[in-house]
């Protein structure tokens, strides 16, 4: 009876919340108060697929849901990205009958890294994808090894781990486990022999801390590594990006499935590969997955094209306090051969909590913007002085940099008769302030 009422109340709150545009964590929060073990009282589907990691969770989950739905599966998933235990509880109960049976072939959960241990105490995933562990929101997360330890607590027996072989810390979750599937990329034409990053989180072995060597870097410390001492190394992959051509906007998986990319970034190809891996494991044919991913445009609003006067541009939502996210966006801008101006805004470091910490700016490889493809760099926001200082430690000539504390003034400056394409790079916390001043197209 308690189960029945808890589910009913959760559904009612969810229904009411949707009407008034409230988020999806509150109903689950109430349900957990009423019945703390409600998640272990429901009947779950055969497939419970969890996705976690620093970057790419939301995009990967959206892609998996897209492929599975296209192929006739019913999928319950947290599409709003409420990825702590409350949001997951809302998802599960809202997808369940009043008797407690989840009405879906597949339960697909995006999970926050630090809170996965609470969520998966009750719900044991059958398949658990870990995309990557980067320096991400360190003012809350501490550091990648701290997150690793928290995630380790969330892995239960009977779960198949699906790991990014190219991330040395993520791949080490396989230590002492048998049921592991690896995905990753072969040596790619866009790879570099030398590390392209301000810092090196792959310098030392995550197992024994001896120095590691790389035969190739896909980006930052993601690549093919081997420890010089203990034998720890990058594993062979079952699902593999065999080639990529970012100029043409194509990737090939397993040497036979070529996918046209709507977004030409290395991030995107990893997200597609992890979605491909999950869908394959669920039993969808590879050619079909490739067709479903062809030219797929994410709906989560992280890449937005806009017009500003006579100019056009793209907003690349990047995460503040996440240098690899910024590096990816900067790489996209600096590869724009027709020539672009770049706007960077740091106004509120986070939308969810307060911090004034800008240490993470020093982990971003802004030097990449010292390229003939990048013409003018515009810096803006409350922390513009910190941006100016950070750029003074690059070799970018200062006359190419303009700075404005006020975002409106920065946008006015860009609203000129210049013909260069505009790349705006900023975070969820600040992108609304920019979008309010341009026309989305």
């Amino acid at each position: 009876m308690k189960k029945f009422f808890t589910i009913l109340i959760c559904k009612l709150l969810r229904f009411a919340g949707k009407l008034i545009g409230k988020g999806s964590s509150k109903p689950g929060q109430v349900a957990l108060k009423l019945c703390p073990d409600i998640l272990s009282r429901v009947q779950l589907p055969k497939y419970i697929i969890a996705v976690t990691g620093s970057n790419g969770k939301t995009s990967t989950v959206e892609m998996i849901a897209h492929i599975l739905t296209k192929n006739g599966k019913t999928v319950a998933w947290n599409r709003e990205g409420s990825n702590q235990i409350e949001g997951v509880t809302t998802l599960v109960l809202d997808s369940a009958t009043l008797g407690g049976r989840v009405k879906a072939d597949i339960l697909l959960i995006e999970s926050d890294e630090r809170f996965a241990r609470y969520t998966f105490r009750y719900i044991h995933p059958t398949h658990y994808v870990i995309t990557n562990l980067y320096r991400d929101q360190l003012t809350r997360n501490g550091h990648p090894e701290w997150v690793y330890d928290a995630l380790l607590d969330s892995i239960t027996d009977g779960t198949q781990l699906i790991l990014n072989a190219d991330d040395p810390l993520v791949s080490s979750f396989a230590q002492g486990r048998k049921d592991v599937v690896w995905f990753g990329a072969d040596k790619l034409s866009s790879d570099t022999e030398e590390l392209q990053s301000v810092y090196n989180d792959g310098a030392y072995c995550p197992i024994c801390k001896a120095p590691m060597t790389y035969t190739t870097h896909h980006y930052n410390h993601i690549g093919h590594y081997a420890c010089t001492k203990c034998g720890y190394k990058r594993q062979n992959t079952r699902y593999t990006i065999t080639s990529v051509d970012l100029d043409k906007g194509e990737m090939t998986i397993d040497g036979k499935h070529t996918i046209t990319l709507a977004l030409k970034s290395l991030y995107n190809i990893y997200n597609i590969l992890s979605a491909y891996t999950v869908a394959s494991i669920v039993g969808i044919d590879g050619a079909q997955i490739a067709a479903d991913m062809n030219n797929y445009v994410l709906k989560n609003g992280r890449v937005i094209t806009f017009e500003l006067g006579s100019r056009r541009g793209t907003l690349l939502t990047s995460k503040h306090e996440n240098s690899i996210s910024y590096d990816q966006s900067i790489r996209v801008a600096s590869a724009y051969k027709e020539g672009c101006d770049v706007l960077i805004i740091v106004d509120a470091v986070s939308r969810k909590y307060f911090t004034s910490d800008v240490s993470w700016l020093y982990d971003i490889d802004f030097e990449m913007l010292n390229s003939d493809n990048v013409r003018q760099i515009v810096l803006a926001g409350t922390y513009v002085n910190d941006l100016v200082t950070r750029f003074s430690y690059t070799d970018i000539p200062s006359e190419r940099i303009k700075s404005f504390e006020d975002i409106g003034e920065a946008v006015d400056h860009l609203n000129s008769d210049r013909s260069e394409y505009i790349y705006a790079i900023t975070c969820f916390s600040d992108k609304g302030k920019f979008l309010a001043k341009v026309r989305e197209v």
Partner: protein
Amino acid sequence: MKLLHLYHDIMNLYGDYANVSAMRRILEKSGAQVSVDRISPGENADFADYDFIYIGSGTERNQRVVLEDLRKYADALKSAVDSGTVVLMTGNSFEMLGKTLTDAKGNTVNGLGFFDFTVTEQNKTRVTGDVIYTCDFLTQPLVGFVNKCSEIKGISEPLFRVTMGPGDFDGSREEGVRMRELFGTHLTGPVLIKNPHLLTYLAEKILGKAPADDWLVSERAGYQITLRELKRRNEGA
């Protein structure tokens, strides 16, 4: 002038490397010829050669690796400190100078023993926070961020007083250590860029004269804004 960036690759968790970039810049702007040596675990350095020695912050596991390597330098580091060399240790690096370090599982190792303090880590809650600190040797407060999982007990002469944010342990209003011109603080990241007055203070000790400081324009403006934001937060909370 010679600068030593010890463990530049393994103790560089929060952009700490930029402290050495900033020190190099102010010394060069003041007319000095500057070289920087970057040393990793397993390599060797002669501490007598240097005008400035820096170690940044690392993960708990990396700090233990580095501590074992640092033991070979214990006497040389102590001599450098005794002779007045300017040494800056930020984040958890200065923890290595205490009596003991105990990890979250209860394993204890000895520190270098320069100080009598003890360090105890836990693995449940990360201790993080924006901070405002003050001290007697600077007229303006320091701003920054602390990111650690340890508490430190037994510091007799603290470096800073805490106005806002975490101190040595839960509820502590003191932070960091000092011995001659060695400064140890849990502040993380580019402390010397966020606090241009600390940079000029240390540079003056190294140079023996006032450094060139008129170029610190965006640094000073950034400091004022951060201090304003932190004060607003502190008074509102």
